[in-house]
Structure formats: C-alpha cells, structure tokens
C-alpha cells in the first residue's frame, strides 16, 4: 500500500519493543462487542490508475463551465485564474503546512496572511481584516453576531437584496442563539427602504452591494441612519471583483464588511472550498472573529509575524470565545493573495472594467430580444432579466443546447411564484463574443 511505509519486519520489531504480541492487543480498551471482526463492505485498495478512472468517469458526466458558454453568478463567479497561482499553492511547504502556531517555522504562512489582510482592507477601504473565514455566507452570519455583541442588541435587519443562502445561514444562527432577524421581501427592483426598519433594538442592517439582483446603491445615507440609531451597517459583497470598479463599502460608512473572495484565485469547485473575507474598523478589532496575523519583532530585532489577539478564540476562551471557529480558509486565502499580487492596481481595475463592459454589451443585446426585459438600471457584472416564461424551463432548454445560461431566480427563491420568470445573468472576462452570440442565438430559439 503506497502510502504506508511500515514493513512487516518493522511492525514485528516495534511490537517487540512495545512488548505486545500483536496490534490487536493495543486495542484492548475497545469493548469486545464494538470491535469489527469482518472487513467492512467496501472495496479494497486500488492503484492510482483505477481510482483516476472511476473519478474521471464521474467528471465526464458533468457539463463543466470550461466546455460551455457559461453565464452563472448568484454568489459564485467564473474568472480566469493565472497559471502561476495553482502552481504556487501546490508547493509542498504551502500545501502541506499547518496553522502557524510555531511562528519561527511558519513565517511564510504568516507573511502571506498579513499581505492578505492588507489586500482585503485596501479593496474594502476598511481599517482591518482577518485571515479569512469559511465563505461569504458564514462571514455574514458572524458579522451579525459581532454586531449583536458590540451594540448589545438582538435584532438584525437583512436586506431583501441579500443572497438567500446568506440570509438562511444567519437565520440558522439566530434560531439557536435567540436573536431576531427582520427579512423584508425580495428587493427585485432595488428600491427598498431599510432605514425605516431600524428600531432601538437593531444591532445592524445587512445590505449586499451589488445586491443579489445586481443593483448598485449608495449606502451613505443608510449608514447615517444606522449610526444615528446606534446600529452598525454590515455590507456584503459576493463578487469581490466589483470592488475594482465601485465606491468601496468603507467609503460609504460600513462598520463591517463580509464578502466572498472566491472570484479571485479560486475555481468554482461546485460551491466549495471558498474564502470568506471579513473587515471592520479599528475600534471593533477585539470583537472580530477568526484568526489574525500581526507584525512584531524576534529576539534579534528582525521583523516577523505571529498569530495574535488569539485570546478571543476558542482554543483559549473556550465557551466565552467570540466564535467557535478553528480553521480559516488557508490555501484559498493564499490563492487570493497570489492572484491579487499578480493583478496589482492596474490589473484589478482593468479586470473590473472588462467585466462591466462585457456585462453592458450583453445586457443591451438581451434587452433587444422580443419579450425580454433587463430590469436593472445599474449593475456590475450581473443583472436580472425578465423572460416571457418561467426561467427554470428556459435554462434547462439552454442546457440541452450546451449553454449554461444563468441562474433562475426560482432556484434561490422557490416560494416566490411571481419571481419565476426572472433570470440572473452574470458576465465576466471569460465570456467571449462567441459565447454571447451562442447565448443570444439559443435564447431567441428557445423563446420562440
């Protein structure tokens, strides 16, 4: 067995030193009736070739976005990741290292986490960011729980433009921790008035920008309304590339930013692993969940980094921790850092401009189709389209033609019948003119 180095000779010698006749004797504390006598009903070991064959067979049954014109968004975006990223993250010292608890032999990890934290703070225009969370949805729930702690209040207002998965994860925590959430109806047109929903018990208002329907809004007035009432503004960003083109949340008065970083450095991976971004103001740093890399000096006076403010975390505070989180998204955060380093200011802003320009062009072409309405006045790289029929059926028909034409809103809002004709269409730098021709042509056909 290729992953097991011990030989039978080794085992014999080791048992002799231990002083037991067999390995079974080492399991003597296991109650007799719990010991498995027969092997389990699972296949025995296989070589690389056989394993690859079986998994490749599963892969072959799927229509990947690499093989089809794809216009899917709704919280996960197909972007081009430079080849260097994947090579670098597979270096053994990065792939197979652990949490940097011994900083003297983890300066690589600690330095890139410090760089990651800085990049996140810069693009969101916030003071400080942590070393990543599981994903945007859990980061959002953690933001709400942090706002509850900071304000000592127990009610969060979740915008009708917030991704339903994010809303639902927050709702799960609310149920078990006993705090309230207010969830106004889906904000299809981008017109909701959240300020009117703030009361004395509101810890935060959570608003996604661009919203799940694509609308972009100036949140400064909402920020003022929150602050006047003693509440925090939590801004959620599901497409982090938008921060290359838009006024950042920090400039609009956000107190906490919870975002999904998947777009940078990370493949779609059928939904995971992704990377949650979390940023806040200096004054709240001790209430921030997750790991933090901090700068310091070593015994020789040389600059280095360590995990810091750990006493907020579970391994020290246990039941009083700010959260129960142990892992961050390590390698995904590294991929983000590397991709962002390659892009730089010029690359990131150009990438954002490309995404937006492609989206504008496709939106105009779709709006020109009979029966098709583009709902948005504003959008970054994703917009909502109203079709003359139920969008789910249209998307299935497009899939039969080898086109992944967008996410039907009904997939995210199955209970809202009047949203059934709506389709979320995302366009990135990966969509060529040929892709757009294919979509427009196929849609015309399907809608006839």
């Amino acid at each position, binding site marked *: 067995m290729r992953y097991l*180095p011990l030989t039978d000779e*080794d*085992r014999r010698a*080791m048992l002799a030193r231990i002083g037991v006749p067999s390995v079974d*004797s080492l*399991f003597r*504390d*296991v109650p007799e009736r719990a*010991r*498995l006598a027969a092997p389990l009903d*699972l*296949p025995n070991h296989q*070589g690389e070739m056989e394993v690859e064959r079986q*998994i490749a067979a599963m*892969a072959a049954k*799927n229509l990947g*976005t690499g*093989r089809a014109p794809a216009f899917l968004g709704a919280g*996960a975006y197909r972007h081009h990741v430079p080849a260097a990223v994947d090579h*670098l993250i597979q270096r053994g*010292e990065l*792939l*197979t290292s*652990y*949490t940097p608890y*011994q900083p*003297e032999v*983890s*300066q*690589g990890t600690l*330095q890139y986490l410090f760089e990651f934290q800085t990049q996140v703070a810069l693009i969101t225009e916030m003071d400080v*960011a942590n070393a*990543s969370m*599981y994903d945007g949805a859990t980061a959002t729930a953690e933001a709400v729980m942090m706002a509850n702690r900071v304000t000592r209040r127990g009610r969060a207002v979740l915008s009708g433009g917030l991704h339903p998965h994010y809303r*639902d994860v927050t709702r799960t925590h609310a149920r*078990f921790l006993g705090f309230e959430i207010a969830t106004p109806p889906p904000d299809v047109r981008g017109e909701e008035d959240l300020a009117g929903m703030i009361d004395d018990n509101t810890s935060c208002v959570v608003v996604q920008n661009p919203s799940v329907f694509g609308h972009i809004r100036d949140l400064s007035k909402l920020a003022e309304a929150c602050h006047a009432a003693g509440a925090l503004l939590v801004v959620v960003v599901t497409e982090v590339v938008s921060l290359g083109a*838009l006024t*950042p949340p920090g400039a609009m008065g956000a107190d906490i930013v919870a975002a999904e970083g998947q777009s940078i450095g990370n493949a779609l*991976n*059928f*939904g*995971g*692993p*992704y990377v949650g971004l979390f940023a806040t103001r200096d004054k709240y*740093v001790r209430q921030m969940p997750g790991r933090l890399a*901090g700068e310091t000096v070593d*015994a*020789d006076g040389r600059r280095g980094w360590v995990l810091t403010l750990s006493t907020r975390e579970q391994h020290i*505070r246990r039941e*009083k*921790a700010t959260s*129960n989180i142990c892992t961050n998204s*390590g*390698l995904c955060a590294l991929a983000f850092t590397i991709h962002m*380093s390659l892009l730089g*200011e*010029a*690359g*990131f802003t150009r990438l954002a401009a490309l995404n937006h320009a492609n989206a504008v062009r496709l939106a105009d072409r779709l709006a020109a189709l009979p029966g098709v309405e583009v709902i*948005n006045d504003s959008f970054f790289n994703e917009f909502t389209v109203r079709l003359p029929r139920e969008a789910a059926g249209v998307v299935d028909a497009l899939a039969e033609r080898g086109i992944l034409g967008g996410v039907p809103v009904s997939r995210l809002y199955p209970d809202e019948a009047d949203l059934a004709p709506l389709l979320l269409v995302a366009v990135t730098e990966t969509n060529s003119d040929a892709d757009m021709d294919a979509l427009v042509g196929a849609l015309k056909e399907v809608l006839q």
Partner: protein
Amino acid sequence: MNTDPITGTFSGNRGLQIEEPLIFEQDRPGRTGVDLPEPPDVQDRLGGLKRQGPIGLPGLSEPQVVRHFTRLSQKNYAIDMGLYPLGSCTMKHNPRLNEKLARLPGLADLHPLQPMSTVQGALELIDALAHWLKTLTGMPAVAMSPAAGAHGELCGVMAIRAALEDRGESRKRILVPESAHGTNPATAAACGYTVDPIPANERGRVDLAVFKEKLGDDVAGIMLTNPNTCGLFENDVLEIAEAIHAVGGYFYADGANFNAIVGRVRPGDLGVDCMHINLHKTFSTPHGGGGPGSGPVVLSEALAPYAPLPYVVHGPDGFRLVERDDDPAATGKAFGRLKGFHGQMGMFIRALAYMMSHGADGLRQASSDAVLNANYLLASLKDDLSPAFEGPCMHEVLFDDDFLKDTGVSTLDFAKAMIDEGFHPMTMYFPLVVHGALLMEPTETESKESLDGFIEVLKGLARRAKAKDTAFFHGAPRLTPRRRLDETTAARKPVLRWRPPESQEQAAE
C-alpha cells in the same frame, strides 16, 4: 557596504534562507503580472458609484510574484519536509493524486447552481463519499455541508437542539470533558447551551461517577472525543452512551481522533448520535496552512431528520440536491442552512480519492499502523520523558512536564529546541488536564526510520534538559528564519496590516 550584524552577509540572506519584503514594498505603479485585453468603450451603468481614487494595491510582474511566494514557502515547515507530530491534528501525508483529481475539468469548473441534469457526476461523487462515511461509521445518514470540524460540531449540536425542541423540550446543559478541544465548549455556547465540565479520572478517562452525578433531565447531551485528547480510548463509552440516552439526551462524538479506529470500530456501534469527521485529518485532505477543511457529520436515525439543507438524494430520475424543506424528499425538519451552496466539494474529491486508494483493507491497516507508531514512541520515550498515563495509548501519546521538573526548562523551551533539530514540535499545553502537556501524534505515514530519528533527538534533548543546560533551551531556536517572536507586543500594540510610510508617520504624530 556593511555586513548584516546578525547573518554576517552583505545581503542579510543566509544561504538558502533569503529575506523577502512585503509585496507592498515592491510596488511600481502600472506594473502588473496579468495581461488583460483593453476593455471595450461603454457607457457605464454603475449607478453613479464608480470608484474614485486609487485602491493602493502594489504592482508586480509575474517573475517577482513567483519569486516572492517561493521565498515565503521556504520559510515554512510542512509534512512534505518532515515529521509533524501535532496531537489530534493527524498530519499524515497528503497524496498528490488527490490534487490531480480535484482539478479535473468537469469537477473543478462546475458552478454550484447549474441545472442538476448537468452535474449528475458531481452529485454521484458526493453520494459515493457519503456512502463511504456512513459505512465506515455505521451510521445511517450524513450531513455533508459543514465547512470544517468546528462547523461540523455546530451542525451536530444544532441537530441535537432541534430534535429536543421537536419533542417540546428545552434542556439547558451540555456535558463536556475538561480534556475536550476548545471548540467543543465554544460550540455548545454558540448553540445557547451552558457548558458543564466533567473532570478526568486518574486514568485520563472521563470520571464516570462524576458524569453520572451530573446527569439530569436538563442535560441535552454529552460531547465526547473518543479516543480522547489524552490519546486514550474511553473504556466506559458504552455505559456513557446508555446513561445519556436514559435521561433523554444525545451523544455527540468529536471525530477528530477517528484515525485511531477507522476500519476497526464504528462509532455507530458505540451509541453515537452524531459525529463530525475532519476530512483534513483522517482522510488526508491538505492542511493548506490552516484550511480549508471539511467537516461532514454522520447522524443516527434519531437525528437524521434534522440534518441541514441542502443534501443529495438518489431517485429514479438520478441524483438531486434537496434545497427546500418542503421538497417531497425532505423530512420537513431540517434545522436550517449552515453554509452557502453545498459543501466543500474540492475536499470531497480528495477524500474520496484517498478512501478508494486505501480501500477497506488499507484503512484498517492505516489505523493499526497509526496506533502502533504512537505506542512505539511511548515505549521508546517512557524512560526519558514522563508519560501522563499508563499505556497502551491509541494513535497519539501524551506526556507531561514532570521530566523537566527543576530543570528550569519549560515545555515551550523544549519544543523550541526541537525546531533547530528539524522537527515541528508536538502540540503543547493541550489538553489542559495535565501540566505542561506534550501531545504527539506520528500518524501511519511515518516510517520506522523517521520515528527512530525523532526518538533519538528527543532523548538527547531530554538528557540535555536534565543536565540543566537551561541557556541552550531558552535561546532556542537559533537556526530558523526568525528566532522567538515577541507575542506580547504583537497583542498589546496590534499591527494587523501594512500601511504606506507617510500614513505611519501621521499615525505617530
């Protein structure tokens, strides 16, 4: 030009240890490492919110970025380099086949919300992994979506609470051994429970008498790690399970140490109601410097109905994701959603590849070798170090700092000296139930030669400590890219990001 006072070289580098500044300190405006086409000229639709002003990201070319992260990587210890004996972390070899398969087109490039007809192979894969997990644990159901171990713990405890609420009961207490990992009490608190700790007995196991005393009809359950964090199998586990069920509570098992028993013992046979599994521990998905992980949770018949959304089901029309609680295939009792989308698919592919590679026979051999390796360390070191408990141990072995008594050398100092010897230290100061704990888990992927080398070094260091060469230990490590770092100043005056020099001056004013 003067030489660096510490390294004696002009550059400040020391052979292959090359100093590397932050990317922000290598900025050249306009420089980039990615060539993108010129965006077509369009009238923007950004709602009047077009970004004004620069972001402040540095510009580097590809060669510089590659060199930067390569140099950073060289400052890290990793499993690929040597033994990484962190207790309860299961730092086993990360097979490269896993990496190759996770990147296959048709898997890596799937969007989570594609029509289900276009992702049948992906759903089949998740279902296949679920089958392996259920069979290995002897449990009828599994929740695949939790993103990490702690997230899985949350899932398990939330399922317990949902089940109790469904029965119309609101119990307030959860029992947690004092030896438990910090995530256990943190999780219980995050679900609204108060934590009632159970002490260990002198044999390192849960004190059964105290446990029974603490039982009552206000106890929602127990969170037990088995084998426990002292590396010992909880002999009384069947009695504990019976007792907790007798008062109407549930048995949550922390599966971090599953590597000791996989293929030999099924948690389902021990009376477990839910157990999270760390795919990044037992099933070899890479630790990646701290993540990502994956923490699926196996569930008993009693708790299965409360599993969170979404999950994969297999019907006459193929595989499907159940995403709504009123779906015909749903139980209607899901406690909610824990994560965006469906789970850590990238880690599922890797774990399945690992399981298929090992097979039932290989997995059983793996746990046997893991336990053998740990006991070999115990037998070889018991005279030079001080084992906390009498053996045999399971897949990890716990020592306390008794052997360092009166030497002036602490567990921390001892660990720092190991670093200069080319080893990552074992887990220190955990579990809390012994003083100055040293918890070592070699895993099954260490050869006997590797263990023998490790043993010799530890013996040498132990003897050196007993000879009271304290200055040697207090000054360790000396040969690493950085020596001991000032964690106090880092916490007192946190510097958590880089800032451009002008703003640093302004801040100082």
